[in-house]
């Protein structure tokens, strides 16, 4: 016979103002199975909790119902109190008499009767609660960081420096990401390569970090603490151990005219190439889609010239399987190409470039070695128009968000242009300047006051070419929308920052949700910005939404701290509200008949197929089995199962059935 303790809270008078607490306590005292029923002014207070603890001991209670506020508020508090009195916390339930009763109804019998119903319902439920114990899950102490930009580098270094193992996977031949393509960085104008390269070298030299470049995640299975990642190491056609990075092969390669991705198509590279001088690892790869050997079997100049005989034409892609405890996604972003904008010439005009291309023109290691030259004829542009918000904040283009970084890098571009071409004119068409970071507004003011960049508030409607000049037609809304036409030598479009290509398929591989723009979805925008809804998978940087370097680095360190926290204890404990498939004595073994429709219903892929065999190994039947690490306790499978072979701890069929019966009896 159960011995339930019922504790009715007045909550000061939030409850007792409209609910007759004494009457509720008295009525519940006479309910079968209730051994103790009292009311008290503040159950959640320390004396209140000690009331529960002493009642449990004295009356040897087998269950507790606290009728007070919402369980979403104090369920943990009262469950902890019960645990302290050596009563399994999951034998304690809460009835919501405040938010669902006293605060929303007037004083009167109806309200008190409702309170009685709610409490008696929970008493019936608690009678059928079972003691539950937190689930222990082992944790593999290796983190997988996907994406080798500044976010991935920072996260990998933080985790490695905390003594944990890291596998860093980067799709390109070298780590560095977009930051390695920048000239200088706002707001301090320090050279991007100078602050990034040491970090890249540190990644290469850190013993805890295993670096796989020119590699992609093939698949990820398993659950928090127990993932298995399959990484595809694309064939580099170069033996990394033998190669010394001398560069003879690159000079020997007869093919020179491949637009370099690193230089955003403004510079050229060979079929065997190192993306940029400071690349880490500084070893070349062969672009098999453009190399003559892979097309016609001839050439092999690079192999003949290689002093270390490191060229391996027959190298194949390699799939590696690694046990992983946690994943940090740092795949970064991309920017829209000029061909996306019909009103600005569809990418027909060579001198209409994106912000990233202008970065390459400004960069000392760029195709023009830092001199600002027009891609069409190489002359120095005397008049450049910078266009902010190209595509961003434009619902018609399907990109309604602000890309956050363009105002700042456009001001930087204009300043650097004026520093390099003193007699040049720079115009910036903008809607609103977003310079909210530390030292940002001062930086942008300097562009106007010291470098005399002409800021025109207005949009431009069209760019077209007329005898060698680019006619930029716009409006100046501060001068009463007066039409403005500028004959520019060059136009830089600050195009929208969008999700990196392949983001959607990676999200599907990791079962992480993503938004309409294919940016990864954080668990909670304010309170859990670097976590995802999938336990054990964290996010950092622009893959979650466009952001600048300081924010990216702080998110990377935040994600790293989450991983370090996860790895800090040997085992992971999780709430035992999970589904369990029943097991019975042989020959039935389980009432589950293996239709596995629950498996396809489970959003967390938490249900596996278990083979039940005789001692000789002959298969008797296949039944479902719930993986306690993965199951989040939604219960969809329980309500779905036709033979009721699977039940949810904490909300079992018996419990909810009893609640309905008691409520309406």
């Amino acid at each position, binding site marked *: 016979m159960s011995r339930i303790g019922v504790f009715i809270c007045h909550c000061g008078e939030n409850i007792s103002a409209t609910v007759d607490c004494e009457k509720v306590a008295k009525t519940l005292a006479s309910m079968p199975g209730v051994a103790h029923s009292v009311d008290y002014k503040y159950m959640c207070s320390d004396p209140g909790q000690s009331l529960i603890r002493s009642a449990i001991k004295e009356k040897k209670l087998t269950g507790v119902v606290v009728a007070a506020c919402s369980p979403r508020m104090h369920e943990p508090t009262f469950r902890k109190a019960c645990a302290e009195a050596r009563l399994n916390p999951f034998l304690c339930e809460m009835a919501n008499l405040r938010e669902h009763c006293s605060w929303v109804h007037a004083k009167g019998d109806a309200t008190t009767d409702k309170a009685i119903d709610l409490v008696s319902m929970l008493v019936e439920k608690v009678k059928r609660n079972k003691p539950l114990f937190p689930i222990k899950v082992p944790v593999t102490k290796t983190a997988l960081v996907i994406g080798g930009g500044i976010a991935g580098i920072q996260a990998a270094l933080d985790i490695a420096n905390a003594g944990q193992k890291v596998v860093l996977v980067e799709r390109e031949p070298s780590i560095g990401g977009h930051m390695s393509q920048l000239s200088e960085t706002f707001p301090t104008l320090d050279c991007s390569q100078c602050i990034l390269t040491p970090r890249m070298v540190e990644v290469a030299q850190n013993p805890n970090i295993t670096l796989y470049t020119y590699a992609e995640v093939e698949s990820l299975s398993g659950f928090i603490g127990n993932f298995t990642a399959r990484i595809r190491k694309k064939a580099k056609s170069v033996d990394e151990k033998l190669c010394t990075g001398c560069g003879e092969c690159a000079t020997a390669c007869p093919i020179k005219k491949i637009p370099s991705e690193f230089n955003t198509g403004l510079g050229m590279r060979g079929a065997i190439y190192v993306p940029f001088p400071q690349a880490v690892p500084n070893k070349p790869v062969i672009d098999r889609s453009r190399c003559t050997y892979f097309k016609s079997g001839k050439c092999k100049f690079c192999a003949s010239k290689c002093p270390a005989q490191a060229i391996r034409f027959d190298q194949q892609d390699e799939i590696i399987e690694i046990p992983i405890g946690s994943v940090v996604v740092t795949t970064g972003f991309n920017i829209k190409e000029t061909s996306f904008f019909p009103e600005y010439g569809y990418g027909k005009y060579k001198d209409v470039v994106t912000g990233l291309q202008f970065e390459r023109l400004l960069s000392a290691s760029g195709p023009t070695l830092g001199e600002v030259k027009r891609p069409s004829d190489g002359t120095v542009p005397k008049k450049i128009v910078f266009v902010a918000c190209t595509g961003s904040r434009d619902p018609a283009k399907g990109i309604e968000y602000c890309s956050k970084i363009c105002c700042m890098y456009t001001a930087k571009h204009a300043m650097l242009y004026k520093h390099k071409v003193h007699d040049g004119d720079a115009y910036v068409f903008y809607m609103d300047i977003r310079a909210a970071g530390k030292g940002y507004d001062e930086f942008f003011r300097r562009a106007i006051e010291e470098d005399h960049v002409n800021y025109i508030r207005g949009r431009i409607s069209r760019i077209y070419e007329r005898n060698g000049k680019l006619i930029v037609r716009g409006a100046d809304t501060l001068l009463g929308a007066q039409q403005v036409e500028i004959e520019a030598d060059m136009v830089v479009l600050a195009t929208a920052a969008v999700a990196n290509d392949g983001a959607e398929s990676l999200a599907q591989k990791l079962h992480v949700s993503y938004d309409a723009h294919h940016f990864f979805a954080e668990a909670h925008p304010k309170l859990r910005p670097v976590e995802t809804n999938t336990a054990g998978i964290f996010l950092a940087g622009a893959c979650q939404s466009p952001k600048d370097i300081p924010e990216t680095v702080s998110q990377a360190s935040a994600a790293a701290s989450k991983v370090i926290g996860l790895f800090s204890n040997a085992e992971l404990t999780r709430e035992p509200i999970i589904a369990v498939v029943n097991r019975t004595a042989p020959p039935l073994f389980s009432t589950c*008949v293996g239709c596995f429709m629950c498996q396809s219903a489970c959003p967390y892929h938490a249900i596996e197929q278990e083979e039940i065999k005789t001692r000789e190994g002959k298969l008797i039947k296949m039944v479902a089995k719930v993986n306690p690490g993965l199951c989040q306790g939604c219960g969809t499978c329980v309500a779905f199962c036709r033979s009721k072979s699977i039940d949810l701890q904490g909300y079992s069929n018996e419990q909810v059935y009893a609640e309905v019966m008691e409520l309406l009896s």
Partner: protein
Amino acid sequence: MQALHQKAKELLESGKVQVIIGYGDGSGDRVRPVFISKAESASDLIWDDRCRQNLAVYLNKPEIKKLGVPAIVATPVVVKTIIQLISENQLKSSNIVVLVVDNDVVSELTDNASLEAYSAGHPVVFPPFVVKEIKDIAEMSIQQRNKYWQDELSRCFKCYACRAACPLCYCERCLTDNNQPQWVCVASHAQGNFEWHINRAMHLAGRCVECGSCTIACPVGIPIGLLTIEASRIVKQEFGQEPGLHCDADSAMSSFKVEDTETFIK
């Protein structure tokens, strides 16, 4: 029929199958399932339009499984049932031989693709009286329907013959055998019957291939097949999914599409 006998003899003699599940003469002019494991008695098999029970119900019985690889004489709905059972991980086309008879030509279907092709080519055709019943009920008001089903179901005395006849009711412990909690009242009063029959319909929604075995099996002649036909009709109309067509089909009720539409959830 000769072709069937010939094929049955061959299969048994070659040892490819150990038992042939087919139709044989029953009491009166009725037909009953027969299980032939000796080549000589292959001629007991008959094949005419009286053969309507769904023999697929025997494929998973332990007694049949003990005998070894079975062959089964299959009407189109039996083929659909086998496909549905394959999609629910209950059968594998590799260890059964399905014999289909089309105007005295017997062919063997031994893999998913051939089963699916045959099923696609043979849509379910309701006999006229079923079509009429479906139409009548569709035109009833909700009160009339309530009265109709109360009267019909009042004759049910929970013999569960319908459950036994249905190949898709393969649970070892049925929902009704569940008493912690007692989901379905055991007694065959109005409430108990209603709860049993609506649960049977919900469990067969999107799974029932409309073979009619349950209606045939019901000793008190309740048209309970109409309930599962309606359940499958709802699933087809709302989600466009039909049972018994693909061996790898996702079950309609345990999958979803984000764009499922309804008008009653506000």
